[in-house]
Structures are given as structure tokens and as C-alpha cells.
């Protein structure tokens, strides 16, 4: 553990073994806030280098998934949607926060191992790595969101959907934060475990797939029987996806006990993840 005390403009750094539970040391994180910005900026600059389509990939991924789901689940399987919303926007609205979530989960879980040389050679608050990975997905999300607006306008013109901007949109930041908090919470656990157990690398793709089917991405959450709704809401992404469908498409409101359960689970995940991460942090450089 190390603490910094600012006194007469000189900082005294006190290094000693951490006993028991480590504090969050948010002051340190604040000192290094510009590094979070630079890590996000670097990932954005580098991500689509040497690709032909470049930043279009951020849009193509959810868009192509939407096309595939619309053909197989919407058209062939005839999956019902809430209030008869056209299936393509019904699933695309879910894919938006879900892509944000899986990208954040995946990148943040791999962040420590992916930056091994930084972790073993330089001091900085380790939380910066998963944190900047989670926040980095917001730009892609923003781009994919523009496509959604386009889709909504298209379906307003061709019929089947009525495009309005209403007060429920103000709830969107809450649902975005809920998705990011969940991703960060799970990723804090997984990134710290990944340092010791490379098995995590193999679990991640499977986990993303699992989340996709236990969240109402391709189907409506109203298909889940009433008595299972509370259990179903333990997955915070249920609250997020339903929230998006409600705010943007006028699906039934998710606000209620289910959303409260989702929110509480997300907060518990984040808090326990932070504690575990901080506890394991002291040995990252030795075991990575």
C-alpha cells in the first residue's frame, strides 16, 4: 500500500505492506485522471488502423447482427415483439447497449494482461486500465446510436413505428451507466482473476454469448413467465435492454421492482469487484 500526503507542495510517499482490505485510494486515481483520457484516446486512434473500413466497423458489428437476427428470429422464427414494433429496430435497440456492454466487459477483463509491460514496469493506479477500457466503448456506442436514429426515421416513414422524442429519453444515461457499471463490476473480478488464471481468456467469449441469451436481445422479456421475472432481473442487462426499449421505442416501462433488483445487483458487482481488485492489486506485478 502506498499513500501520498501533500504537504508544503512536496509529496511524501509512504510504502508499506497492505494489511487486510485496501482503501480505494481515489485520490491517486484523480491525480492520474489524464492517463484515463490518454488511454481512451490511444485505443481510439489505434483500433481501426490498418483496416479498410476503419471506424465503420463500430457501426457494422451491431448492424450486421441486427440483419442476421431479423432474418432468423424476426422473419423465419416469427419472434413476437412488444407492441408490434418492427423486429429490426426492436433487436437493434437491444444490440446497442449490449454491444457496449460486451465490448466493455471483454476489453476491461483483458486490460491488465494486455498491458503486462506497463503493469510490471511502471507505477500507476491499476484501476485505470479496466476503467479506461470500459469508458472507451462509449464512442462506438455513439456512432451506432446515430444509425438507430436513421432506422427509427426509416420505419416511421415506411410505417409500423412512430418516431417521437419524449421525456423518457432522459432516462437513457441511467441505463447506459447501469450497463457500464455492470460491465466494470464483472470485469474487475475477471481482470484480476485473469492475471493469475489465463482460463479467463477462454471463458470470456462464452460469457458474452451467455449474457446475450439471458438478456432480452433477440426476444421480448415479456416471454419470461411472471413468476420468473424477479430471478430474470438479477441480470442487470435485462433492466438495461428493457429500459432502452421503453425509452426509445415505447415498450412497456421497466421501472419497478425488476429494475431495482438489476440496479442493486450492478452496484453489488461493482463494489465487490472493487474490493477484490484492490486486494489482488498488490501482487499483480509479481504474478502476471
Amino acid at each position, binding site marked *: *500500500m*502506498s499513500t501520498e500526503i501533500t504537504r508544503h507542495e*512536496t*509529496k*511524501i*510517499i*509512504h*510504502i*508499506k*505492506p*497492505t494489511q487486510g482490505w485496501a482503501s480505494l485510494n481515489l485520490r491517486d486515481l484523480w*491525480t*492520474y485522471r*489524464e*492517463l484515463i*483520457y*490518454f488511454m481512451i*484516446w*490511444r485505443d481510439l*486512434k*489505434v483500433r481501426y*488502423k*490498418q483496416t479498410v473500413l476503419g471506424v465503420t466497423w463500430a457501426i457494422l458489428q451491431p448492424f450486421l447482427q441486427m440483419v442476421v437476427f431479423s432474418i432468423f428470429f424476426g422473419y423465419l422464427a416469427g419472434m413476437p415483439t412488444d407492441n408490434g414494433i418492427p423486429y429490426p429496430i426492436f433487436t437493434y435497440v437491444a444490440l446497442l447497449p449490449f454491444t457496449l456492454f460486451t465490448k466493455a466487459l471483454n476489453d476491461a477483463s483483458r486490460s491488465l494482461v494486455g*498491458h503486462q*509491460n*506497463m*503493469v*510490471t*514496469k*511502471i*507505477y*500507476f493506479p491499476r484501476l485505470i486500465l479496466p476503467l479506461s477500457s470500459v469508458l472507451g466503448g462509449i464512442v462506438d456506442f455513439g456512432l451506432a446510436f446515430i444509425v438507430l436514429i436513421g432506422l427509427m426515421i426509416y420505419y416511421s416513414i415506411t410505417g409500423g413505428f412512430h418516431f417521437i422524442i419524449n421525456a423518457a429519453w432522459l432516462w437513457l444515461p441511467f441505463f447506459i451507466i447501469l450497463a457500464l457499471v455492470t460491465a466494470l463490476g464483472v470485469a474487475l473480478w475477471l481482470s484480476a482473476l485473469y492475471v*493469475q*488464471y*489465463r*482460463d479467463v481468456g477462454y471463458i470470456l467469449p462464452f460469457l458474452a454469448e451467455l449474457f446475450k441469451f439471458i438478456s432480452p436481445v433477440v426476444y421480448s422479456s415479456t416471454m419470461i413467465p411472471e413468476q420468473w421475472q424477479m430471478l430474470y432481473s438479477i441480470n442487470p442487462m435485462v433492466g438495461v435492454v428493457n429500459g432502452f426499449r421503453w425509452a426509445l421505442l415505447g415498450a412497456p416501462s421497466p421501472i419497478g421492482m425488476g429494475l431495482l433488483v438489476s440496479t442493486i445487483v450492478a452496484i453489488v458487482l461493482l463494489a465487490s469487484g472493487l474490493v477484490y481488485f484492490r486486494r489482488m492489486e*498488490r*501482487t499483480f*506485478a*509479481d504474478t502476471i
Partner: protein
Amino acid sequence: MSAIIRVEHLSKRYRIGLAPQGYRTLSENITHAMGAPIRAIRRVQTPAPDALDTIYALNDVSFDVQKGQVLGIIGRNGAGKSTLLKILSRITEPTEGEIWINGRVGSLLEVGTGFHPELTGRENIFLNGAILGMKRSEIARKFDEIVEFSEIGQFIDTPVKRYSSGMYLRLAFAVAAHLEPEILVVDEVLAVGDAEFQRKCLGKMSDVAQQGRTVLFVSHNMSAILRLTQESIVIEKGQLVKRAPSAAAVDFYLSAGHSSDGERTWGSDEIPLDAAPFRPVALRIRGPKGTVVETVRSTEPAVVEFEYELTSPVTGLRVGIYLNTARGEAVFTTFDTDDPLMFERFTNRNPGRYISRCIIPPDTLNSGRYSLNVNASSYRIRRYFAEEQALEFNVDITGAPGMHWPEPRPGVTRPRLEWKIEAL
């Protein structure tokens, strides 16, 4: 407080190998099983675990450093220097003990960490600066100075993946050197770059020292230690064994008999079956006083001895060494019966123990690390035994000719030649 760094009873214990087998809960069993393949990989990378499952990389180390002091840290590989620096730079935590540091620690442990090959020099300066703990405004203020120091010039907007390795290192060092911390930790960076750039780095380091800032300087290069530091500490097997003015500390370090190093012994299971009747016993390097050493001084004679046993009479045997640099360039090859008179005398060797010994004369080798291959054969009849890199050793050139110019000299030899200057 007067000391800028105070280290008290610092210890770092590493777990190696497996935890003792015994009681374990189900969940521990699961995690243990999960970790099995990883441990298997790790075992390949690191030496086989000892009987003990923990080792002390640092053991009860205490010292302090005064403001403005340049302190040398000397020790062989694995002595614990890197662990000490890692704890001081807060990369890893100590197991026991405490440290108080009065100021920002800048580390040149590994220059260029966080550099991204796809980004341009300009972008990497900002990124690397932020990783090292600099504020954006601070980097912007020093930007021109950094570019100038790195000599990158018009390539500043080129992705660094197109840089030569020299340019890359210069840029990386330039960023780190402009961090302006109260305490600068320097580890072997002087090994990078060309002579001209090394001079610049040394200059930057003494600038830092003159500005009243504190430098911790770790190096295997004893000449650099002597030139740059007044006082040094010697770390051996995790313990601080000596703190003295640098000249005395360097002497202590070079003359300390490292029994386990400078010697290669062969256990019976290491000798190939087809080597008989030749059995290698040990290969050693001895300093002028006869102690087995890992580092020899180029100004003193060094003895290489190969001890072996013959289990039956051998005809025409020649036992020899191939000296190579650590990078694998051949320096010379020599055999114990190179002299025709010796060959005649030892044409037939009876069973028994032998030592073949030679002396590398003073002023032969240049600074660096060398390795010895051994070979025992009867020419055109049979090769009994050969091993590559049987033993490695260092050559320290303190006191060698031309040491008043602090530049590394190319070449594997460093002869003391007799020069004459004639005025015409």
C-alpha cells in the same frame, strides 16, 4: 526529515513452486485444478522449485539516501536490485518493512513502456508522458526540448513503428529524462544507443544530480558507477552487504568470492553415457588471488581451469575451451596440448583426475559478458565430451587503457598497446 528516501527493514518474499500439499477446501481444489496448466507453463519458464516454496528476493534491507545524493546500487543478476527498484517505484509491494519517499520517483527502469508502434512520435510523447505521471500541460511545455534531445527531427509525425531501434530508444529516453522527478531511478539505460547518445544520457544524469535531485543508479558497469556516484551499496542474495564510498564498494564487489558462481560442476546424471572414459568434474574461473570469481578484471590475469577424470587410459586427448561473447561471437579457441611438446608429453594419459588450466593474460578482453564452451576429444578419432555455454563470466575494465574517456569501445579485445608519438 533530512533523508529523501528512508528504507526500513524491507523484505520481499516470493512464492515459488507449489503450495504445500495438505488440507484444502473444495473451492481451493477447483482453483488449484484450474491453475494446473498455468503452473506447468510457469515451471518451464522458471527454474525448478526449491524444497522451500518461498524465497527472499530482499531480506531486511535498510538504508537511507540524502537529498541530492547519487547512490550506486551494485549486485549480480538476481541479487535483488530489480526487486528493490520495483518496490521503490511502487510497482510491487514489499512483504515487510516500510519506505518513506519525499518526492516524485521517476524511473528509467524500462524506457518506452506504453509506446504504441502505430502512433506517431508526437502522439507517443504525450501518451508516454501521461503514463509516467506527467500532466498534459507539463508535456506540452517540455515538448520542444524533448524533441530536440531525442534528435528525431522531421520524423516526429511518423509512426514509431517506422523508426530505427536507435531512434525509438532515443525518443523513449528523452521523454523519461524530462520527467524531472525529485528522485530518478536509472537502471542500465546506458547500455542503449550509440556512444554519442550515451554521452548525452550521462550528461543528463549529472545535470539532474547537479540540480540537487537524487539519483539511484543501478549498473553492472563498474566504471560508470565509479564515474557517476560517490557512494554505493552492494546487494547480495537479497541482503545489503556493504555501504561504502563507491571505490571501496566496487572493490568489495569485485573481490567477493562468489562460490557458486564462476564455477560449473557436473553431477553424474548430467554426463552423457557416451562420454566415458571422460568424466567432466568442474569448470572454474579464478581471479589472481585464486578465488573462484564471476567477474574478472581485464587488468588482471584470469585462470580458467577444467577438472575431469579419466576412467581408462586415453590416447591423443586434447581438452580445450572456446571463448565466446555472450552474444555468441567467437573470441578464441585453445587446447591444453596446443604446444607440440605438451602434446608429446601427454599423448597417453592414465586413468585418474586431472586439471587442465590456462591463464588469460591481463589486457586481453574488453568489458562485457563471455561464455565458455568446453570440449574434450582425440583429434580425428573421437569426441568424448562437449558442452556449449558451460560457464559465463563478466569482464570489468576498471583501470583498462583509455578509461579517462568514458565511452564504450567496440571490439572484444582491449589490449594495452605500446604507442609511440614522434614529433616530425
